């Protein structure tokens, strides 16, 4: 899967994108976020309040139960502030 991070989530995690193999315990957005938090203190800090985290899979907003698959483009970012 291809992961993208934006705004302060990108700044806190310290990277804009990364290519990761889908671990066996990850099957939906919720389990993906739980797994990412174990990847280091930067991930744990960035993702500690999921109320301020939005996820898009293949460029559509999705909820925590949305299924993730290898090959998906998964973007994680704070609430948008454009306009």
């Amino acid at each position, binding site marked *: 899967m291809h992961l*993208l991070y934006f705004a302060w989530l990108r700044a806190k995690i310290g990277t804009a994108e990364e290519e990761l193999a889908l671990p066996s315990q990850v099957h939906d957005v919720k389990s993906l976020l739980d797994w990412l938090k174990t990847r280091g203190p930067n991930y744990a800090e960035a993702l500690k309040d999921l109320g301020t985290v939005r996820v*898009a899979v293949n460029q559509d907003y999705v909820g925590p139960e949305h299924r993730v698959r290898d090959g998906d483009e998964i973007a994680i970012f704070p609430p*948008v502030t454009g306009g």
Partner: protein
Amino acid sequence: MIRVQREDFDVGAELEALTKGNPRIGGVASFIGLVRDMGGSDRVTALTLEHYPGMTEKKLAEIEAEANKRWPLDASLIIHRYGRLEPGDRIVLVATASPHREAALAACHFLIDWLKTDAPFWKSEETPEGKRWVEKRAEDDAATQRWTIKS
């Protein structure tokens, strides 16, 4: 039509192009968003807009299609800039053209409300106290909620 670009745009030329050659159009509503500096201790000296290339275009096109489904528009336009901007600079232009003014006005209002909450852009501000990320405003969610069709 939607455009995501770093460059500024010419409001007069864009609005003129929107209606050119279509004498059915009776009204053009538009909204221009500008970088603002509230002064005082909250002084903003610059703004940087980051976006999600690909998804931005997709979302703007979806929002524009939704407006065209809800109102009888003859033309519509969304231009949203990204990159570093200074107070007074234009950020966004939304324009809608219709035979009837009510459709143009409502659709324009809808588009700016929706792109505030749905288009993947993030603002960071430079102030004398340093750089900070702009937080989402609860009023923006409320504004978008108004347009939700109750099922």
